[in-house]
């Protein structure tokens, strides 16, 4: 099993039970919010007058609990972090929106999730709050066009984790977050003692054991470390090897050619051949990458994933390209393909444009099968063949855009 389950990454009529799973998750969410006291606006607002810091304790308690469990599972290779939705970072709208929400929180006494729980348990203030939220959401939908560019771009960092920001290993960040949360819990208890006259001696001793186990769990994330790329591929090997064997991901030169001219698609061409071969000849727009360096492209490709982006890897034939494809597949990069037959096959189809390029013998399968009069790179005509000349090339289309998760439509998370 490979988590998260692919069938559950979105609800779909093809899997009617996926709706049920999300309802059950929601049910547990609402139930826990209620028993924690989040249906009561006085309890929520007390947070901001230091008398009862339940909001902070529950929120940070939940965050650190979920975080250590998630990253232990990621470290063990059971959960694929690349498939976990990490909220895309837009600093501008997130900070301004957060400040506006802070104002709403202290005036209104709820946040959207807690107001729903208040509403269904009969709190009339929650009813008015939910009506207000609806008006606010409506107003945003109607005014977003006024500042669309700011909203779409300000502080945009893509998938940007604390690990990317600070350049530290996951385990270190997880431990630091746990320690920060424990410090905040300690501070919260001191504030409650001073402002809320809470008797700390009556607090359950069990909470100290809980704090200790959190630290141990966080340290174990450091010890476990991150799963290797090969281990990640081994998990998905049955599916991916079948796709390779059935030639579902090897696209013909003609399909790649048409994709190059399709303005609706973002195409990234990765050429994993040697620099010498690359300098002799390469496709226009291709980037030369050393096979050992392919893995280092993964964070960037994940951070700026777009539903219309296609990555095509190529070598002289397919051997090196297939190896690079596996590396990227293990990192859960969506929409990756291999140029069928590699650059040699490309030149077989389009090489007639350059009479100077002559076919040559290939000592090993993944060698360049052509001889070039000069290292002109992409300045050969066949590096970017004419669209007019080859308009009617036929091929079996294989590119299928997989939209893994489109959150722009307003999933709150």
């Amino acid at each position, binding site marked *: 099993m490979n988590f998260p389950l692919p069938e559950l990454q979105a609800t779909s009529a093809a899997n009617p039970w*996926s709706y049920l799973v999300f309802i059950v998750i929601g049910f547990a969410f609402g139930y826990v919010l209620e028993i924690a006291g989040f249906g009561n606006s006085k309890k929520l607002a007390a947070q901001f007058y230091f008398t009862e810091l339940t909001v902070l304790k529950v929120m940070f308690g939940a965050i650190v609990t979920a975080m250590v469990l998630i990253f232990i599972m990621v470290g063990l290779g059971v959960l694929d972090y690349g498939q976990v939705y990490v909220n895309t970072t837009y600093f501008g709208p997130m900070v301004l929106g957060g400040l506006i929400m802070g104002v709403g929180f*202290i005036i*209104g006494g709820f946040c959207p999730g807690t107001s729903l729980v208040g509403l269904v*348990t009969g*709190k009339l203030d929650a009813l008015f709050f939910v*009506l207000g939220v609806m008006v606010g959401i*409506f107003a945003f939908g109607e005014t977003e066009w006024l500042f669309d560019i700011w909203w779409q771009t300000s502080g945009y960092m893509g998938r940007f984790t604390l690990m990317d920001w600070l350049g530290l290993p996951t385990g270190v960040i997880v431990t630091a977050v746990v320690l920060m949360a424990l410090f905040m819990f300690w501070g919260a208890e001191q504030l409650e003692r001073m402002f809320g006259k809470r008797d700390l001696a009556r607090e359950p001793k069990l909470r100290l054991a809980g704090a200790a186990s959190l630290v141990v769990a966080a340290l174990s994330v450091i010890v476990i470390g991150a799963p290797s790329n090969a281990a990640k591929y081994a998990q998905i090997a049955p599916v991916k090897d079948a796709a390779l064997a059935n030639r579902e991901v090897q696209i013909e030169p003609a399909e790649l050619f048409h994709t190059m001219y399709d303005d609706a698609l973002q195409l990234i061409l990765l050429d994993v051949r040697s620099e010498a071969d690359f300098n002799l000849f390469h496709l226009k727009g291709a980037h030369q990458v050393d096979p050992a360096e392919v893995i280092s492209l993964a964070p960037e490709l994940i951070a700026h994933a777009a539903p219309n982006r296609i990555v095509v890897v190529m070598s002289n034939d397919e051997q090196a390209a297939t190896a690079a494809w596996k590396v990227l597949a293990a990192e859960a990069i969506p929409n990756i393909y291999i140029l069928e037959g590699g650059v040699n096959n490309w030149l077989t189809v389009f090489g007639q444009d350059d009479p100077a390029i002559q076919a040559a013998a290939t000592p090993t399968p993944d060698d360049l099968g052509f001889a070039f009069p000069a290292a002109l790179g992409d300045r050969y005509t066949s590096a970017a063949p004419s669209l007019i000349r080859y308009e009617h090339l036929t091929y079996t289309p294989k590119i299928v855009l997989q939209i893994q998760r489109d959150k722009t439509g307003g999933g709150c*998370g």
Partner: protein
Amino acid sequence: MTTLTKSPRAGSPTWLKMLRQRPPKDYVHPYLGGFLLGLVLFAAFFLTGNGLGASGGLNRYLVYVEDMFFPEHVDRTPYLLKMAGGDKDPLDDWVVMVVAGAMLGGFTAGWWNGRLKIETNKGPQISVRTRWLMAFIGGAFMGYGARMARGCTSGLALSGGAVLSTGAWAFMFAVFGGAYMLAYFVRKLWQ
């Protein structure tokens, strides 16, 4: 609205009285609440790759109604188009299911623990009507801010925080910052 059927009133039928018969219990300890909420959040990420959410679900319910009455307007507004343009169904989304489940779960917890009660929670210095008005205004700020930030306390702070999104952490501190900055000036509402 689902709530209207769930609001017990004076002189209500017996089945509504039964909903309120259970003895009221205390809320759980905040750390236990946090731990349990963390387990739910982990389960959501582990099984589905998505966290939790609330305002996104409310957004989609609202867009569904908008699309029913003004489909042309929805098709012309880029922000709404993504959810309900053409023949897209804004309700066919995981977060809609989560929100529906959360309302069921909250209701069940309130009933089981004897906390179903029509009431208005407010500070001692303000009238019930003032509290309602403030709740409405605060809600409007919340709704607007949540959509601007692309998530609310559940979907962005909680979910994004647990998977270590930098933007989510910046957002979280902004929410607390905004509330603390204003708290002193509106203390009459609560104290």
